[in-house]
């Protein structure tokens, strides 16, 4: 039993440690982009439109931004970040595009 527990704990700890390490070492641009999403970035809408067009249609038909409210898009995009392997920055860009287009 103990030998089975070790790889699971090691996996979880390594994930958290790796995640924390990368979070601390990520570039200032990414850190700023993910940490302060409320800051105005004039290019974010354009980046979001491009990321939306490139990623969403890889699996399903493009959904109209008007289908959901701003708050619903927040949860939907977190779900899609997991599904599509998006980065936090790409997710934030697409979210801003959808919220600005609905």
């Amino acid at each position, binding site marked *: *039993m103990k030998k*089975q527990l070790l*790889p*699971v704990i090691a*996996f*979880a700890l390594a*994930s*958290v440690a*790796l*995640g*924390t390490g*990368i*979070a601390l070492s*990520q570039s200032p641009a*990414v850190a700023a982009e*993910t940490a302060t*999403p409320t800051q105005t970035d004039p290019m974010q809408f354009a980046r979001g439109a491009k990321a939306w067009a*490139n*990623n969403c*249609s*890889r*699996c*399903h*038909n*493009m*959904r*109209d931004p008007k*289908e959901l*409210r*701003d*708050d*619903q898009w*927040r*949860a*939907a995009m*977190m*779900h899609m*970040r*997991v*599904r*599509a*392997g*998006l*980065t*936090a*920055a*790409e997710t934030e860009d697409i979210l801003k595009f959808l*919220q600005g287009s609905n």
Partner: protein
Amino acid sequence: MKTTPRPNLSGALWLLILLSASPVFAQSHADRIDELEAKTLAMAEELAILRAELEKERQAPDSEDMRSIRSESVAARQAAQNAEIAASEWKNSDSVTHLAGYASADYVSPENGNAAFVANFNPMFHFQYKDRILWEAEIEVEIEENGDTSMGLEYSTIDLFLNNNMVLLAGKFLSPVGNFRQNIHPSWINKLPSAPPGFGHDGAAPLAEVGVQLRGGFKIGEQSRMTYAGFIGNGPKLEGEDGEIHGIDTDGFTGDPDDEKVFGGRVSLLPLPKLELAVSGAFGDAAVVENDGVDFEGDPTRDYKVFGVDASYQWNNLDLRGEFIRQDIANEATSIAPEGGVWETWYLQGAYKFADAKWEGVARYTDYTSPHPDKSQEQWALGVNYLLAPSAMLKFAYESNTGLAGESTDDDRWLVQIAYGY
């Protein structure tokens, strides 16, 4: 010598002294002082009156108009503040809930057998805390042939967003081996009413896993990117029947009878934004835990491995994708079902939207091979879809199936489905 005569100043000084002492000058100065004193007194009285009036005004109650104006002003200011708070709080609250999912209604008409209507729906729940935690779950609700309603937990994970590139999932998740099961199978996404043979229960593709998973993605330069997923889970169970392995049950279990974990994952590369090439797999041990429909204990463990490759490409209205998956169970001489086996399937699918992207034609070829001939199936599926909305499709399809003669896998079928993702 010429001398300048000096003016006589002493005379003028005396004259000034005399004038200042005269009664006329003294009288004028006194009058001026009296006049100033009078004015000062008058101003003091006037100031006292004004102060009294001001104090009276302060202590007096507001007039009706003034009170009305003041209360309207306060109410308007409060309403503006409330509106501002209300407008921002549902957008920016720490916690967000979202109900999503999909539903479908089908009509299936096999070559041999009775045509029937089918219905199911899959609600999905998203509960998010800030940008750090997401709990997501999907329940599958189906009506059985006998009228019973079956319900299953497709997945339920707590996702921790560690940083820009990593998410840690814990719970029951869809298997990241391959792409169809984890991303394409929802009815509003799948372009045909049915899953390719081998991607269902007891097939070649693993369905779900219970454990922990780390996944995410990276950008590579301006255009390219990669995604990854790695997991540890309890692994599958084997079902024995008549001394053979009937199938590999990969529904995802909270128990682990063989006491051996399964490790696996998937890595995909997107050299172009809409071209994805992926390889995936898993390895571990499995054991027979059910024999002839009865729970069975003590069967020895044996090697289990799965390997898959998948690819997809989109160009304008064209959508191409394909996938290969193979599951292997090793032989185990001391088992109640000694012989192992290989479950293998692959499919290629092409779809094209036309008529202002309202209509879509689909073709898919699948070849599924099972150790049991009655399960193996080769299939051509052709379909036409009408897009009612971006997330709603009306599908018409025909399947040409080739399987063991007399088995349902050999029956051609007509299928109609309406699917809606919400």
